[in-house]
């Protein structure tokens, strides 16, 4: 158990624990905040997995933008108070736990099918953190990247059209 592993386990537990709290808090704001904690923990895990750039992006995009947007909408609709019916009844609970449990089992079984570990491709060290991601992004993945920009544009237009009362 080296230091990295200890840190990893700690953040992993934090991520899973706060995710569990996220889905069980009745208060949407609490849920959102626990989700933010999960996202932070994930960012830490990304750093430990040699993906510093992605970790920063995680904080920047998810915690800094998307979750603020969520909070904004929750407050805009004044949904901050916990609704008495937000969680489903015992039947829903049973079905949900059953299905999610089955899924978890399957995913854990599926984990064994992954490729063997080892042979780490640590290009990061030679190229620096950002070029490692940026080079393929602007060469091999240039077309998907450009398409992403189109997607975002479409999303902006769509969001404006949907949310505006009068265009």
């Amino acid at each position: 158990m080296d230091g990295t592993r200890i840190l990893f386990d700690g953040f992993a537990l934090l991520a899973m624990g706060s995710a569990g709290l996220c889905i069980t808090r009745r208060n949407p704001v609490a849920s959102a905040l626990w989700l933010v904690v999960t996202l932070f923990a994930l960012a830490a895990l990304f750093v430990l997995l040699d993906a510093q750039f992605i970790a920063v992006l995680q904080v920047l995009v998810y915690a800094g933008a998307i979750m603020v947007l969520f909070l904004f909408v929750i407050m805009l609709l004044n949904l901050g108070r916990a609704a008495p019916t937000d969680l489903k009844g015992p039947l829903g609970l049973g079905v949900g736990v059953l299905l999610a449990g089955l899924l978890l089992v399957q995913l854990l079984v599926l984990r064994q099918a992954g490729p063997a570990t080892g042979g780490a491709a640590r290009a990061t060290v030679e190229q620096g953190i950002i070029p490692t991601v940026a080079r393929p992004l602007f060469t091999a993945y240039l077309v998907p990247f450009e398409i992403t920009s189109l997607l975002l544009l479409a999303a902006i237009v769509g969001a404006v059209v949907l949310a505006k009362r009068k265009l």
Partner: protein
Amino acid sequence: MIPLPPLPLALLWVVPALPLAGFVVNGALALAAPRAKRAVSITGVGALVLAFAAAALAVVELAQLHPSAPLVFRYWEWLPVGDLQVALALQLDQLSAVMILVVTGVGALIHVFSVGYMHDDPGYARYFAYLNLFVFFMLTLVLGASFPVMFVGWEGVGLCSYLLIGFWFTEKINADAGKKAFIVNRIGDFGFLVAMLLIFRHTGSLDFGVVFPKASAAFAVGGPVVTAITLFLFLGCTGKSAQIPLYIWLPDAMQGPTPVSALIHAATMVTAGVYLVARCGALFALSPVASATVAGVGALTALFAATIALKQWDIKRVLAYSTVSQLGYMFLGVGTGAYAAGIFHLTTHAFFKALLFLGSGSVIHAMHRAYHATHAHEDAQDMRNMGGLARYMPWTAALMWIATLAIAGIPPLAGFFSKDEILGAAFARGAVRPAWYVFWGMGLAAALLTAFYMTRLMLYTFHGPNRTGDREREQLHEAPPVMTGPLVALGALTVLGGALNIPPLFGGGARLEHWLAPVTDAAFTPAPDASPATEWVLVVSAVLVAAVGMVGAFRLLKPEALAPARLAPPERGLGRLLWKKWYVDELYDAIVVRPVLWLSREVLWKIVDMRLVDGLLVNGTAAASRALGWVGSRLQTGEVGVYVVLFVVGVLAVLGAVVR
């Protein structure tokens, strides 16, 4: 295969392409400018004349080469489907050379005649478009280098035949005649198709150049497969060439314009069956049963149709039954194995029957104009309304007499040589198979009847007193030169056509036989040569029979005593039986048409269509869909939660399949 042929012959496609171009131009004119008759005439006739010239050039070229195998020109791949490789290929050999000359030559003359005959018709451009299209398909039929290409022509001429029979489709009887021809032909075409599939099944190809050389190796002589193939092919022939039992459409086809009858229903299309049998001689030679069937059906048809012709009053119907009868002769010839004789008769028949039809067309034209001028509603085609027309139309009368003598078999006209050769071959074959003596006897009897009914036609039409009517008589006169010109040309061919194939007996060289030898040798079943003495006896007896028929007609028939059509008393006894065409149409009506109609109405319509298709399948499908939709709509609770549960279950199932 054949090495690349010299350049001029590779342009063989020009021959069918010219009439096709004519069709396109005339078709466009028919749609755009139906009144541009001059342009239509120039295009329609010009295409045929040029096609004839091209065909003649091609044949001259072929004559210089005189190859022992057909020249095949593959233009492009048509149906490359797995094992089945069908190219759009044309082939030129001695047999198709004869055919394209007949088709384009006689066709050109008939086109010229049509210019006069159809001159006042509002559908002038459409007519020439159809006619050109027909010639294109006929040339495709005879030039095709494989069964499918030939079949395209085969179906195409059927289509054009339908279009032209029903050319004046505003009269129901014409449209019905067209439909009858089409439907009856379909039965035959079905036979052709089945034969084609069988051939492919057993030889793996549909090209003539592959199938025929392979045939003797692929099929046992007299084996069931080859017999079935040839019999199905012959079924196709009986449809297209109007043999028993499918001949019934041809007399009705006389509803079309008379030049059409001359071109399609006398000279060209109906001979396609003969051509097919000759072309597939290699197959028929392997099946004695089929050959005997062909010969027997031919002989029976010759006799049977001749009897009907005896009592017909419609001038074109007489000629129609005569055509059926003469086609029977051709089948007797090719069934006997005397392919050259059959083709020879096909050629000469094309000349004199075209002449007869065009002559009758000339008569009808005159009669029609006469009745039209006086607004009388008499039948312009009924011989009882004619009589004594020789005075008004001397050219027509003289030329038709030549044709009559030819068809009766009076030497030295063309018909004599060709008919005599067929009968001679049949008799000679009788030495091997006695059945052929019977066929020969039937042929001879048919010859007697032929001489009789043709003389009857001439007598009632051109001689005796005129029964047309007093006012109408003044309107009768000879056709314009554009119509008599082709008649004269055909008359010359009728007189001289026999020279093509004068047998050695008369010191001739049997040129057509030698010309066709590369094609027919492979298929020819050698008939034992009869001694010259026997042959002389046969020739003399044939001529005698013809003479007896003609003299008998002169003796027995009294044109002076004939009443005009509307005053004529009903026929009785055997005469009525013959006049009613042996009640064959009624018989078919009773055993085929009515049961089919009953089956269609009572079973197919009221049970299958109404109950099964409409009730069970159509409405049932709708009901099932609605029921399914109802069930599905129960799942559409509109609640996202339910959808999510179902979705997750689906994901679990898919993942489960992967995890296993």
